[in-house]
């Protein structure tokens, strides 16, 4: 994945109303399909809510206004990197699921796309954060800080 692709991923997320983040943020979908993308530029946004679009297409529009249990296909957005399209599931005004149905593929290869966690799953993950920890998995560390952290986690339950 190139950095550029993040722009389209961010774009798709904005289109979807940024419903699913690990912070468990659930934003209510707006009646216009969250078409008002734009804002500040950030390629590593954690909580969402702002971001830039690398797309040059028109505003995405839902085929119909969201209502309870509705699944709405977003419009196909032409970007420099290829077409982007998402499918959004609403429960009332709330977005409950977002699926990317179309996105630029890397090097012409067919891309199997990611299933992102539903808000329900995200809540389960967040609830686990305070659970007892015997050990910690992470990318390779060299720091004393990490060592201390792991050791304290181990000590905490013995």
């Amino acid at each position: 994945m190139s950095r550029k692709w993040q722009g389209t991923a961010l774009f798709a997320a904005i289109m979807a109303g940024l419903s699913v983040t690990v912070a468990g943020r659930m934003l209510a979908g707006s009646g216009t399909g969250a078409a008002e993308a734009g804002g500040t530029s950030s390629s590593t946004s954690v909580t969402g809510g702002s971001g830039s679009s690398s797309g040059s297409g028109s505003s995405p529009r839902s085929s119909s206004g969201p209502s309870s249990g509705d699944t709405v296909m977003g419009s196909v957005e032409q970007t420099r990197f290829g077409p982007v399209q998402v499918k959004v599931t609403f429960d009332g005004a709330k977005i409950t699921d977002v699926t990317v149905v179309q996105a630029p593929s890397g090097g012409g290869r067919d891309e199997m796309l990611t299933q992102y966690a539903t808000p329900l799953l995200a809540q389960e993950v967040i609830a686990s954060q305070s659970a007892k920890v015997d050990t910690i998995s992470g990318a390779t560390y060299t720091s004393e800080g990490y060592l201390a952290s792991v050791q304290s986690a181990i000590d905490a339950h013995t």
Partner: protein
Amino acid sequence: MNLTHRVMGTVVLLDLRGPADDQLVARALEIFDDADARFSPFRADSELSRIGRGELALDEASQEMQEVLELADAFERASGGAFTVWRDGALDANGIVKGWAAQRAADALVAGGATDFCLNAGGDLITRGAPEPGRRWQAGIRHPMQGNRMLGVVVLGEGAMATSGSYERGAHIVDGRSGEASAHWSSVTVIDTDLTVADVLATTVFAMGSAGPRWAHEEFDASVVALDQLGRLAVAGHVTWARG
């Protein structure tokens, strides 16, 4: 007993419950030292460096070296080249050796009679038995963007878990197909029964980008927890999240 062993530029933590056999533990930890001596790309005298310089032919290499390179080759083919130990003509087996060595060390502990332990090699870990009667091993996944908290805590039981991320060393995980650093994921954690597999898959999924988690689940029946650069969580396969 809790034991800390510094090797391979990182730290190995052994949390062994019940009676400890010091000799057994020493033998298990030696596996890491041996692996470092053999596979380190930073040591000019390592077997890997000698192969890289063309001083040693692959068919003359040690059984361990051949095993690791054959495994790496199999993963390279399975991933369409996203995973590779060859980079710009140089050999770098770091994406597989840590998990492989830790799996061997865990196997040695089990063979020697150890029943309940957690072996954590620089964030890649394997668990056997239980931490205490009636409770299963639980492993936290470090949050890639907030170092002081967990992304989530998983009930691992007996299993293996490895994480690849770009956050700690400003690292590059290169997609072997393009030769470019992969920038889709912030953190990729793979859960499997085998730590060699989990370690390689964590690197590979990271390198593959958005298609990675589903691929690892469908091809290897592994479970994947990944956080992308936007902070969005993706989970492939079954993961048991801890509740207490």
